């Protein structure tokens, strides 16, 4: 259920984010619903297949979308599947999408694809430990290995959850390819990560990728929402907050140099480690 | 023996030693035939044959008759004295029950140790043979002192072995001289590692 919901609102989220940014930058900006139209347009175009490519080229956007979509299946914001260890499956389904995306980037034989591919691999290596440590810490703190069983934020677990939220927030910007990790608006080959991989995907393939990117961000926001104590209101609120935060960040922040990424992401890993230690060694504020 | 620098003197000393040993064997023989025979054999082989053989060897080799050593003469003497002392001191515990000539046991041990010192420190092949022969004499003296003599055929076998060894060594020394133009064993260090 969550997955379907996300599928519906993902273009809205990304589209309105562009609008927000434009407004913050004193531009008129596109219609917040622009991305729906864009996707529709792209889907109906013909697509180009680079000559050296293999079937992976076609499968990659599909897998990227399905990875994010199936991952959303396990988010218990709306009733859905829930079992012990579901958050691990969720995280690895996102990996599945990335695996194919990164592979397909090498498939074209182009220099940009290769650059995007190994940069994305680096980002994954940097972000993954923090994400899983944060989720693991939350699960340990709740003594439940399923997302549905996560205890909401409370005085009991304030420290742990704060740290976990830091880690997840950093993971969100890294995996969502947002500032300061990546600039979604740039097409300057020397700096881009996510866009470089999509350079040769066009038309419907690009549409799938765009949708997948939005979906992926929503999944991370959903994970953050699960830790919030507001019950059914958690997700809308987190969505709103995330929306505002990303907009402001990309207006007033700058992109970090690619080689400085490890410095930033080490905060994510560190928060994750401290969160786990906080649980198992029973730290309190 | 330890103090001498001349090879000829050494060989003569060795011959003298053997003659003395042979006499000792006669004295201890108490008329038993096989002791007398052993003593005779000893006199003949070790007192006469081996020294003669060595002299002839030296002659044919045509080398300087000087003993070359790692150790200086005073140091050799000092060490020799020390070893003899050790031999005397240690030798007492080698005196077995029923030893015939307990007094000679420490002498024998001392002789063995000196022989070894000689072999370790002297460079020429001939001197090493002499050291070996001194050692062998020590062993023989030990046998005389401790026991009523080894069985005769053993005794003869031992003496024959010693003789064969010396002959073989002599041949080898000769070949060494031919091949290397010297008989300094300290310089034969091709085989290592």
């Amino acid at each position, binding site marked *: 259920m969550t997955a379907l919901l996300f599928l519906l609102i993902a273009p809205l989220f990304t589209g309105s984010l562009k609008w927000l940014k434009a407004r913050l930058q004193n531009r008129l900006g596109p219609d917040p619903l622009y991305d729906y139209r864009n996707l529709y347009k792209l889907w109906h175009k013909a697509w180009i297949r680079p000559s050296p490519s293999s079937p992976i080229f076609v499968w990659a956007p599909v897998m990227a979308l399905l990875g994010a979509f199936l991952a959303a299946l396990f988010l218990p914001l709306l009733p859905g599947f829930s079992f012990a260890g579901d958050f691990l499956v969720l995280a690895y389904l996102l990996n599945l999408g990335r695996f194919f995306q990164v592979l397909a980037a090498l498939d074209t034989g182009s220099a940009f694809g290769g650059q995007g591919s190994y940069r994305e691999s680096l980002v994954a290596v940097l972000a993954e430990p923090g994400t899983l440590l944060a989720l693991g810490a939350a699960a340990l703190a709740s003594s439940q290995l399923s997302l549905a069983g996560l205890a909401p934020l409370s005085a009991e677990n304030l420290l742990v959850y704060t740290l976990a939220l830091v880690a997840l927030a950093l993971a969100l910007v890294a995996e969502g390819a947002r500032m300061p990790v990546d600039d979604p608006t740039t097409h300057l080959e020397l700096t881009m990560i996510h866009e470089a991989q999509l350079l040769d995907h066009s038309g419907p393939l690009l549409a799938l990728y765009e949708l997948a990117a939005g979906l992926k961000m929503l999944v991370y926001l959903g994970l953050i929402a699960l830790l919030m104590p507001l019950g059914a209101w958690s997700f809308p609120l987190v969505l709103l907050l995330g929306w505002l935060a990303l907009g402001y960040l990309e207006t007033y922040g700058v992109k970090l140099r690619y080689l400085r990424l490890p410095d930033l992401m080490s905060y994510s890993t560190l928060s994750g480690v401290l969160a786990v230690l906080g649980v198992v060694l029973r730290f309190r504020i | 023996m330890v103090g001498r620098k001349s090879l000829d003197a050494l060989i003569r000393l060795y011959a003298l030693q053997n003659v003395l040993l042979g006499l000792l064997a006669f004295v201890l023989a108490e008329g038993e035939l096989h002791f007398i025979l052993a003593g005779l054999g000893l006199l003949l082989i070790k007192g006469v044959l081996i020294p003669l053989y060595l002299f002839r060897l030296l002659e044919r080799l045509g080398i300087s008759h000087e003993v070359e050593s790692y150790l200086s003469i005073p140091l050799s003497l000092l060490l020799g004295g020390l070893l003899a002392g050790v031999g005397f001191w240690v030798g007492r*515990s*080698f005196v*077995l*029950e*029923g*030893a015939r000539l307990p007094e000679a046991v420490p002498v024998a041990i001392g002789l*063995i140790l000196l022989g*070894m010192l000689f*072999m370790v420190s002297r460079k020429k*092949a001939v001197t*090493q043979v002499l050291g*070996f022969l001194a*050692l*062998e004499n020590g*062993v023989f003296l*030990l*046998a005389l002192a*401790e*026991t*009523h*003599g*080894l*069985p005769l*055929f*053993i005794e003869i*076998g*031992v003496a024959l*072995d010693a003789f*064969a*060894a010396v002959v*073989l*060594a002599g041949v*080898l020394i000769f*070949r*060494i001289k031919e*091949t*290397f133009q010297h008989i300094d*064993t300290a310089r*034969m260090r*091709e*085989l290592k*590692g």
Partner: protein
Amino acid sequence: MLYLLLLLPLLPALYALRERTPARLASLSLGAAWFSLALGLLAQNQASGPLRLDGVGLFYLLLTDFIFGLVALYARAYFQESQDQEAWRFFAAGNLFLFAMHGAFLAHNLGLLWIFVEGSTLASALLVYHKGGARALEATWKYLMLGSVGIALGLIGVILVYALLGGTTLDWQEAREWARTASAAQLGLAFAFLLVGFGTKVGLFPLHAWLPDAHSEAPSPASALLSGTLLNVAFYALLRYTALLGSAGLFEKAALLLQSFGLISLLAAGLFLFAQKDFKRLLAYSSMEHMGLAVYALGLGLPWLAMLHTLFHSLLKTAAFLGAGNLLLAYRSKLIARVGGVYQAWPAGAWVFLLALLGLAGLPPFGLFFAEFQALLASAPWAMGLYLLGLVSAFAGLLWPLSQMIYGPGTLPHRPQGQSLVLVPGVLLAVGLFLGLLPPVELVKTWAEVLAWTR
């Protein structure tokens, strides 16, 4: 019969003084050796005079004759291939050597045993010398000096034992009965001399110095004889004396010495084997390793195991030296660095050498694996650790040259002809393999019974 057995090898030795064709000499040597093999089987447990052929003696007699016969066969092809006109020297000295060996194994008298062991030293010095040359001369000289001093020290031990027994008898069997009455401390001293004396010939560290020189400089068939049989004869003397000490109730005293000498030899050999440049020296150090292991097994109070170890070692080491002889014929160099690519150019020659070395490294299915297993099984934990450390380091030492020579880059300059060059080591390996798969434990135990002592 025993006297016939004793003197039989002198026949080809004397014949060699007249006849110079290697082919005839080889056949005669082979015939004499294998005839005495059969004779030995018939003459088991016979005694006459100071001679007696008991189980241990028979065991080593059979082993020696078997190996000698095969080596003679190999020597014929080897000397033909190396165009050596002086091959008769090998057969003359070799048979003289065999005579001394026969004597040692038949002698039941400790004095006589000593004489024949010394005799084997002299005869084998001739084998090492063979045709001369600077290196061979140096090796022979060192061997003769160290061996003679060693054996003289052994003689001191013999004399002391004789004196301790009251100067009555040197007959081994009787001596064992008398031994109980002897002073324990002094018997211990006597054993010290015997251990150092015979240990020199066994090649125990640090008395081993002659061994690599002699083994590497002797012609390959002679090296094979030295390693496969000569080391055994001194070890055989040690066996007898250990049993003597055992019957005096002093085994514990000897055990520690034997074990530590064995282990130290093993560990030292491990270091010496590493980064060795000359492949015949490599094999020589491997002999030192295995004799150390045999002595260690003896120190465990398991004479049968020690005998089994020497059996397997003799078979494999002989094959290895013969295989090395082939390589020497082919490459005309003993340097490991010069040899390479044997496997590509001469598979049969490579396999023989390879398998022999692998067997010596203690790998199954060869027998040394079994022997090492049994020895370890009887060991104390600390000794087990050292033993294994030694085995691994020795293996590392063998592995590098082995792989370099067999599989490494290189070309074969000349491929030796002659079937027995490969056939003889092949037979030895086959026997070793067969005995390794079905270790003749019961048989050897029966033969070793004469050595048994009650603790």
